């Protein structure tokens, strides 16, 4: 299995990472023997059926879960140290904006907690609102915005404190396809402008292929990596690249990988 992330400055490194939950029905192996290096500026998608451990792995990187085996480093530190150093911004499936705060207030939340000065908070809020194309919506309350706009606001919130890593757990999973397409396009532009390292969990093959420089295909029972697919698409990707032969070939490989991982279960 190729691991080309190693040629770039490694940001996230997993060596033999495993996580076993002890449940009443016996141990559940959510992750086994995950080896992966994500280099600086990469856009890596994790795809697989539910229970394959893609979200669990992302949560391990974020130190929201603790692996029971292996070594996981983020920015050269342990995941827990990286969390304490606020090394990443995390975007959840739901926008999770506080209803009692305005959009600007929601973006201010991490800045308040991290102790930025009032002036700097304001400056950063304006900047990230512009990044996600929500200028002028700062004074609105979340319920006044559509689902897609709320999710953009939550991305702005994750960007506000300038972490190098952006971890996204099915951020567009709850949105309809038209909104999802537009947000995918915007996310690519944002990635190009900010040069962040992005870890992106999805269950949509076109989404994974369209966005990623590398696609990690995962499989359940036990959760593991079955294939890592290098994207040959150029960095500049208009939406209609999805009709190109190359795109369809990569999508096909991902589908094959998913099928192989399933074994005789399908």
């Amino acid at each position, binding site marked *: 299995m190729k691991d080309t992330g190693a040629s770039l400055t490694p940001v996230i490194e997993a060596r033999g990472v495993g996580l076993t939950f002890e449940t009443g029905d016996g141990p559940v192996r959510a992750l086994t023997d995950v080896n992966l290096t994500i280099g600086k500026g990469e856009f890596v998608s994790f795809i697989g059926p539910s229970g394959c451990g893609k979200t669990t792995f992302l949560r391990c990187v*974020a130190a*929201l879960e603790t692996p029971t085996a292996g070594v996981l480093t983020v920015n050269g530190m342990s995941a827990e140290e990286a*969390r*304490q*150093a*606020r090394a*990443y*911004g*995390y975007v*959840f499936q*739901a926008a*999770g904006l*506080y*209803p*009692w*705060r*305005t959009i600007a207030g929601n973006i201010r*939340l*991490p800045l*308040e*907690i*991290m102790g930025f000065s009032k002036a700097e908070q304001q400056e950063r809020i304006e900047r990230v609102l512009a990044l996600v194309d929500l200028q002028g919506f700062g004074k609105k*309350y*979340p*319920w006044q915005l559509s689902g897609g706009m709320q999710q953009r606001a939550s991305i702005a919130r994750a960007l506000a*404190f300038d972490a190098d890593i952006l971890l996204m757990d099915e951020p567009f999973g709850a949105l309809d396809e038209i909104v999802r397409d537009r947000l995918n396009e915007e996310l690519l532009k944002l990635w190009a402008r900010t040069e962040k390292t992005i870890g992106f969990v999805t269950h949509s093959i076109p989404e994974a292929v369209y966005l990623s420089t590398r696609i990690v295909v995962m499989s359940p029972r036990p959760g593991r990596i079955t294939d890592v697919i290098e994207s040959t698409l150029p960095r500049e990707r208009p939406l209609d690249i999805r009709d190109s032969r190359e795109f369809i070939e990569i999508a096909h490989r991902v589908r094959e990988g998913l099928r192989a991982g399933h074994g005789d279960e399908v």
Partner: protein
Amino acid sequence: MRGAVCPPAPREYFGTESGGRVVKSVLPILTVLLAIVALWYGAAVWLNSTWTYDQAARAGTEVSFGALVKDTLAQERPVLPAPHQVAAGLWDGVFGQAVSSKRSLVYHGWVTLSATLLGFAIGTVLGIALAVGIVHNRAMDMSVMPWAIASQTIPILAIAPMIIVVMNSLGLQGLIPKSIISAYLSFFPVVVGIVKGLRSPDGMQLDLLRTYNASARDVLLKLRLPASLPYLFASLKVGVAASLVGAIVGELPTGAVAGLGARLLSGSYYGQTVQIWAALFAAAIVAAGLVMLIGWVERVTLGRMGLAR
């Protein structure tokens, strides 16, 4: 086609559309009120008739139905005073007396209200403090709640005299013991409501703050407390009514000379049922006013927080 013109909708008889809505919402309330008043009058005639018949028998006269109704609704010490007698007693107690008079319901109402407000404040602060402790400390979570529940199973009438006696031995009389009893009743709904409110943020919201490496204090101030406010107001409405009950009960065992409880007590000593009912209604009006006041603060606060739509 002239014949096709529809007649105006019935609601236009009430003027504007919003006027119609007001009539629609008030009408059911008035109907129920009217039914209660009618039942009450009927019950007053029935319950007070015994005395009227006794008087007539003693005098050796017969009473006609008209005379019976007239007499039963105007007795000095009726078993059940008629609504207009209670209203007159209430009116006289509120507006017919100097505010400083011992017969003024404003005076007695204020004595009870001040104990209620102090008790409510103590109960609310205590309730919030306990709730914060319960949510943050596992030992408190395991230990405090059962005691809080147990405390509410003891009849307040049984424990109120004990509190008065203990407080008295400490040299505390009047306002403070009453407030303690009042707080004893009001802290419980606050604890239950706030614990639920503080625990209302879901795992994702807590995870989000974890990714910011937020301190427990930030989690409390920025997430848990704001999220608990809708629960707080619901609890406060129950709590303030309980506070008033506590304050009145606190006035009973001491033979207090001031307060709505004292008014109830002296009314029962002298068989002044009109006085008792007037005091009861005064208490109900105070409670309704307090609940409405909290409702107003709730609307303004949640409106400003963008939680009310």
